[in-house]
């Protein structure tokens, strides 16, 4: 259930990112909300479920954004593993301390992916502009706290049992029989 909920949340974030938060096709200041979800998965969820959520998310991202297929897969998985490695070595587990790491990892991953693509397909990407990327990074760090709160709620909500299994379970005739 967690996987389904987070896939839906991820798709919703990508859709918001490509519609409401992009007032014009050349708008430079749309927040990369999907990266906050990537960070959440790295910091709060186990590997298997995170990968199950990330796979459809990067697929949607690759379809709706960019011209090089796999670019978003590269950035999301790099960001995910980087954050996971960093968080396992960090002495603090508080979100407020983790937000700067999320922002920093976003900047590092974007820079690495840009240079990786520039190496293989030179001149096919818009030039790297530091101030724009720093603003983008701020736009990732800004909504991180509220989005983490929402994701926590979503996780709690997804753990609820929608079907009363204990009531649906088949019981034997003698309910008071002692099982040894």
């Amino acid at each position, binding site marked *: 259930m967690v996987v389904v909920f987070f896939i839906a949340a991820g798709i919703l974030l990508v859709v918001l990112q490509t519609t409401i938060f992009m007032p*014009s096709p*050349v708008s430079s200041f749309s927040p990369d909300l999907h990266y906050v979800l990537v960070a959440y998965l790295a910091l709060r969820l186990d590997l298997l479920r995170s990968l199950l959520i990330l796979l459809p998310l990067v697929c949607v991202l690759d379809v709706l*954004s*960019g011209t090089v297929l796999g670019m978003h897969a590269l950035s999301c998985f790099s960001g995910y593993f980087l954050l996971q490695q960093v968080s396992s070595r960090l002495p603090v587990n508080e979100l407020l301390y983790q937000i700067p790491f999320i922002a920093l990892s976003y900047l590092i991953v974007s820079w690495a992916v840009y240079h990786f693509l520039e190496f293989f397909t030179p001149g096919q990407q818009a030039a790297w502009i530091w101030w724009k990327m720093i603003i983008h990074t701020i736009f990732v760090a800004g909504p991180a706290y509220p989005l983490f709160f929402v994701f926590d709620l979503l996780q709690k909500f997804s753990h609820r049992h929608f079907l009363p299994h204990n009531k649906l379970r088949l019981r034997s005739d003698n309910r008071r029989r002692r099982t040894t």
Partner: protein
Amino acid sequence: MRKKSNRKRSDRYRLFRIILFVGSLATGASIFLFSTLSSQTFGPLHKLVLEMTGPLQKIVTVSSNHVETFKREYVDILQDSLRLREENKRLLQQLQEKEILLNKSREALATNASLRRLLEFKKTLDQQQSVAATIVGKDPSTMYRSVIIDRGANSGVTKGDPVVNSEGVVGQVFAVTPNYAKVLLAIAPSSAIDVLLQKSRVRGILKGNGTLTYRLEYILKTAEVEEQDHVVTAGYGGVFPTGLQVGVVSKIIKKSRGMFHEIEVTPSVDYQKLENLLILEQPKSSEIGKMEQN
């Protein structure tokens, strides 16, 4: 026995007193009535009564006036304010509804004007088949510039189709699904279009750089180029029709090294207001062959 007789006597005395009192009152009232009716004069008694009741009347009248004034000044105002508040609420709601309606009609008017421009532009495209589309999504990445449109293969859109609007060239179809397509904008760094300088007919390649300007490449230094020169599509290869407006030369950087000019072109299309687009159907290879033979 003695006590009983005393009580009987006092009872009789009390009855006598009542009768005497009622009798004297009735006699006085009769005399007063008779004398008043017969003489019709406003006697001292009347005056006394008036003097006594006058202040009372005055107090009541003044008080009632004050109450009336109070009611008029406060209670009515309160009622009025309550009524006005309701009225205000209703009018505000009405105003909001009208504003929404106005915005909708303004939006419809703007869309209508944009579509009308697009239609007029479509008429100028001779016999070239075209499909109108609307942008439904925009690329949020900083490295690329593309949009998603609401027309796909089912509407006859194919990969490589040129995309234009009434202002000029917008880009090219990059990927197609049955109902949607991805358009690579001409300002994207991976875009390249064959163009001509309209005045000098010099050919070059127009490339995007991710910002709101193009780069015009491969224009020899020997070629005549001036600022404000119009740049149009060359039409080679048959993808874009010849002569479509692309932009205006805005900057020429002359360097001593190299064979070519560095030219900056300002797009004729306002990329910040892109909304409705026209996808031109590419001529088939056989048609291109015919065109080249002619």
